[in-house]
């Protein structure tokens, strides 16, 4: 039997069931030493209290409020407000007019017809035609830049709308 008292860590390990089998000497000491038994008892009492599952009660309507919040979120993400639809519509019109203004329609028509003729070809051929389409459209750097700007604006709007939807969900709750 060991004469030294158990450390707090060893007593906690003992209560957790983690005291290694080679520490049998410590266990024997624990059985006979009043001081260590007292500490063990204090920890035992603390463990009892830490297991008390009280004071964590949610309100009776909790479950229903989560489910109704979920319903609202589903509804708000699938519907847009009038202002948001107007903004999106305006952006679409701007994009359409810009395309009409810049695109060389004669060469565009030719390329489209060529693509239709070669529709039976493999994906690789289609990819080749798409590259050809881009080449023959005579895209100016200005047009590419403008297309980039439009895409960025659309992305920004998308982000704003999604953010707003999340805000709405929070407000509802």
């Amino acid at each position: 039997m060991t004469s030294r008292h158990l450390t707090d860590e060893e007593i906690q390990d003992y209560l957790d069931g983690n005291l290694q089998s080679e520490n049998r000497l410590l266990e024997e000491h624990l059985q006979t030493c009043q001081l260590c038994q007292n500490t063990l008892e204090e920890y035992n009492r603390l463990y009892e209290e830490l297991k008390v599952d009280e004071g964590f009660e949610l309100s009776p309507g909790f479950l229903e409020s989560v489910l109704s919040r979920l319903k609202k979120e589903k509804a708000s993400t699938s519907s847009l407000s009038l202002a948001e639809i107007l903004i999106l519509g305006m952006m679409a019109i701007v994009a359409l007019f810009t395309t009409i203004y810049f695109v060389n329609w004669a060469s565009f028509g030719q390329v489209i017809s060529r693509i239709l003729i070669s529709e039976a070809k493999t994906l690789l051929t289609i990819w080749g035609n798409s590259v050809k389409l881009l080449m023959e459209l005579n895209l100016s750097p200005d047009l590419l830049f403008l297309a980039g700007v439009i895409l960025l604006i659309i992305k920004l709007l998308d982000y704003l709308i999604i953010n707003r939807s999340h805000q709405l969900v929070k407000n509802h709750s």
Partner: protein
Amino acid sequence: MKKLQHFTYSNCLYYMEEIMAESDSLISRILSGDTRAFRILIEENQRLVSHIVFRMVPNRSDREDLCQEVLMKVYQNLSSFKYGSKLSSWIAKIAYNSCIDFLKKNKKHHLKIIPFERADPKDLIEKTLSPDEFTKRGEIRIYLKREVEKMPPNFCAILTLFHLEEMSYAEISEIMQLPEGTVKSYLFRARKLLKDRLTSKYQREEI
């Protein structure tokens, strides 16, 4: 004896696999739009969420909102749940991270050194206690509850996951993204601190 251990271990594995298969099928049902399945998920896990949130967030009025927030996040992120892993650990991780984010955002209002709203004694006193036991045991219970609430949030989380949820060091380490050694050391320190406070306030006979 060895045979018995082997049998128990296999049984354990078998039940773990069964539990995981059940949660996998529950998640598949929720993802296919079955709201009743989500109701079951909430019923089975709301206690786990409230244990973590109530222990980590001091202000009572914020707790239930945060529990709702956690369950909404669970729903929104269900598609990223890895089938075959433990659902309760995954939910506990979301709850723990949500509490940490909440406490960071509301640092000014929820500094733990400021005495916050005290727990309602009615919530804490076990109905099974006899009138004689009630006074001292109830008092000790309230005292300890308050001392736990004063602790840093990660100590509170570890105490909850280990003692109330009966999770292993490995599970807690996965949830809190801490090495197992750190989890063990925090747990030991937290319990020693609580035991010392308990013994400095009460006589051994009273405890």
